[in-house]
């Protein structure tokens, strides 16, 4: 298994190299450059200014030359500055944005998994019962309703309608990271209490999606397992239902869920563009979208290369975990 893991890790190096080339190339192929934006933002700009600015921003340098410069700097750990925010791209992503994203996505994934797995089992065990129909129906609604709509509705409900209806007794903030002026110097409890208040709605909206999809997978996987021979045998030898479900069926039905959860971990780092945008949450999803639109190359590269790295790493971890949960799989 160790040699398999090492081989896979070595294969990652050329793979990440190719990914970086493709990402840089595709981003560079987008039309326009920062100077185009300046031309249309200023009717008084002169042709000589345009020529000077094109040189200054390296707008006419071929993309593969720029890529080579980026690569040689990146190998030395220098990922350049964010052109939009004038700070190092790594500082922008890893210090300013990623922690905020993890604050939303990690609790949302943990809570939704803890809720969805029992609900999925419940739904499968009571297949075609009224509660099963209700859960199935609700999960379809949650996965098909657009996040930007649900988000705004939830905001309106908790930040406008309920405060008015209850005279302020129930009220949640309409988006943002925290109250203005609130910082850790206010004390641990005050700071995190405030932060928690702002987290409730976006985490709730993220969880709706997560719960609906994990519930559907869990239900399908569990139904698959409980109709197999070994479960029938367990029942036939007189084991109590609880024991059949939790000892025999559950462990086997979790194999596909491990895959899904393993692959959703890089997603924790990619953020949730729509949820972050609707709830004014400055996370990595919004940063990636904004940097793509404004062609802030260094930020795009840091974001996407981090995601690429995490994806291949967690793919490997998931593959190795298979060996642990499924005795039929051996890496020789």
């Amino acid at each position, binding site marked *: 298994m160790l040699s398999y893991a090492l081989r896979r890790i070595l294969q990652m190096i050329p793979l990440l190299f190719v990914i970086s080339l493709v990402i840089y190339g595709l981003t560079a192929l987008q039309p326009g450059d920062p100077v185009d934006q300046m031309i*249309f933002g200023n009717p008084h700009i002169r042709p000589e200014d345009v020529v000077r600015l094109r040189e200054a921003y390296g707008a006419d340098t071929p993309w593969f030359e720029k890529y080579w410069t980026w690569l040689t700097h990146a190998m030395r750990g220098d990922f350049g500055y964010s052109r939009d925010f*004038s700070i190092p791209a790594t500082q922008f992503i890893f210090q300013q944005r990623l922690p905020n994203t993890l604050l939303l996505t990690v609790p949302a994934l943990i809570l939704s998994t803890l809720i969805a797995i029992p609900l999925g089992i419940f739904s499968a065990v009571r297949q075609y019962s009224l509660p099963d129909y209700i859960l199935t129906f609700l999960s379809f609604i949650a996965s098909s309703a657009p996040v930007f709509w649900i988000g705004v509705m939830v905001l309106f409900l908790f930040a406008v309608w309920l405060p008015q209806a209850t005279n302020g007794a129930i*009220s949640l903030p309409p988006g943002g990271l925290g109250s203005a002026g609130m910082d850790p110097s206010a004390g641990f409890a005050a700071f995190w209490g405030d932060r928690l*208040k702002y987290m409730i709605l976006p985490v709730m909206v993220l969880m709706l999606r997560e719960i609906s999809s994990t519930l559907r997978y869990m239900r399908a996987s569990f139904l698959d397992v409980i109709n197999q021979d070994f479960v029938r045998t367990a029942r036939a030898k007189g084991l109590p239902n609880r024991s059949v479900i939790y000892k025999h069926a559950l462990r086997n039905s979790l194999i596909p869920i491990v895959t899904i959860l393993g692959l959703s971990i890089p997603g924790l780092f990619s953020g949730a563009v729509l949820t972050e945008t609707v709830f*004014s949450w400055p996370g990595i999803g919004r940063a990636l979208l904004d940097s793509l639109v404004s062609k802030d190359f260094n930020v795009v590269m840091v974001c996407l290369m981090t995601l690429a790295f995490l994806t291949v790493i967690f793919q490997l971890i998931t593959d190795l975990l298979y060996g642990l949960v499924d005795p039929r799989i051996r890496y020789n």
Partner: protein
Amino acid sequence: MKKIVALSAFLLGAALASPANNSLVIGTSQEPPNIMDPWVTNNLAISTEVNQWMGAGLTGRNNDGSLYADIATTVPTLANGLYKENKSGGKVVSNSLTYTIRPDAKWSDGTPITTADFEFWLKVELDERVPAPQRYPWDGAKITKKDDKTFTITFNPPYLFAQVAGAPGLAPSKQMAAGWAAFDSATKGMKPGEALNDQWTKFISQYTTSSNLPQVVAGPFKPTSWKPGNSLTLTRNTNYWRKPQGGESKYIQSVIYRFIPNTNTLKVNILSGQLDAVATVGLTFDQALDMQKRQGNKFTTFFAPGAVWEHIDVNTRGQRSKDLGLDDARVRQALLYSVDRAALVKAMFQGKQPVSNTFVNPLAPVYDKDVMAYGFDAAKAKSLFAAAGWKPGADGILEKNGKKMILNFSTTAGNAVRERVQQILQAQWKAVGVQVNIQNYPASVFFGPDMLSKGESGKWDLAMYAWSADPTLEGGDLFKSSAIPNAANGYSGQNNSGWSNAEYSKLQKQSETEFNAAARSKQFAQMQAIWAKELPSLPMYFRANPYTRVNDLVNYDMTAITQYPTWDAYRIGWASKGAVSAHTQK
């Protein structure tokens, strides 16, 4: 259980108290990338709006365009002799402004503002290594120091708008000296390009970013905290010298900008009472109309006349343009006569965005109010098409020499207002026999290098977009022949319709050096008459800037000249706290 109930009550309790005392919370949909960059290398509207709280200039302009002294003791004028025009052979060959800095003008740390701060600003602005977006008119400027508090700036060649916009900027030379020296030595002999630009970013980011707030500012407020992606807090700078009526304690003491990228969420924030005002970079026009309907007694949504001119460029270049008759002024006139712009702005904007007749803003001193106006007249449009040889075919579409008048009409995809305007115009043009196919592109493509500037290759026929410019600095540059983008000028000109008119260009050139206001207005009247007759662009309307604020807030207003409601920052305050209203939104 009790603990759970108590925690829930805490979490679900009132999210935020309303702004306490003399604070002000403003929402905006965009976060400035950086603030107080003296050389404005990142010139976004939101940066300008936010910077006005913290910035000061030698002179400033109020809502009606008249100048007031800020850092300077007096506004230089011809009458007081501080503004001079040096003539040779009857022509102005250079002009100059002399400023004296107020003795009490200080940076926020208490160090005096001196001539050196203006000299340093000009030196950096003109340094070849600095990516300043626009060098003109500073590339012809020179500062002559009289003493620490008095200097003269001379423009040679003369700068036409020197009296209005000739005051140089300033930068804290003492605070920036070490950083600049490091930049200077690190970039000696470096060629322009990304490596040099990175060095510039390294220099400027020491004074302008969320992790390195400006160390000193000159204006009435200073930055105290910037939480990236969330909020920016400014507090009153007691070292600022102009004091509002009744004392500054009666006016805003702290300002918090909240960054809310989704404009629907911004709306929810207003309705929930979390915001006192919304920046001009905030609500869309439609949302502002909706806000006006439901504002009640607490808020007012204003539609301030703007400096943004919405228009449709007609491509007059290339073989395709000839085939479609777009190089013929009669066809362009007919296209404008066919559309009912008055009804359009009434239906879509409740008349809040006035129809334009030329590219010149009515607030510009050179605007000609008698310029030809094209009212809706379908019959006249048809006769003009007929005169140009375009007759309806069997399917009702106009034809000439076997070619049908089928035009591609493009704008920025996803801009709901523009897309609705397109549909209305499409229907009206269809009624006179012109088939218009809508073909929109994302902004990055539409404003990219292969679209508007490449009219010659027939990339587009009609293109709807906007230009934004200070009306008092109107120079008529957009339509001069030398601004037609082509290979020779690296496709850098902005006359995208490709219209070339010798007489217009001659008058425009003359107006660049015409220092007599009356004579210049006369030249512009002729230019506007030519333009309105030729119609290289179909003028649509001047956009209004919507913004919302709580009724009690005073001196938070603007015009197309001041452009942002923060222009008079030191006097913004709550009437209920004793702030005195000096001006109101018209």
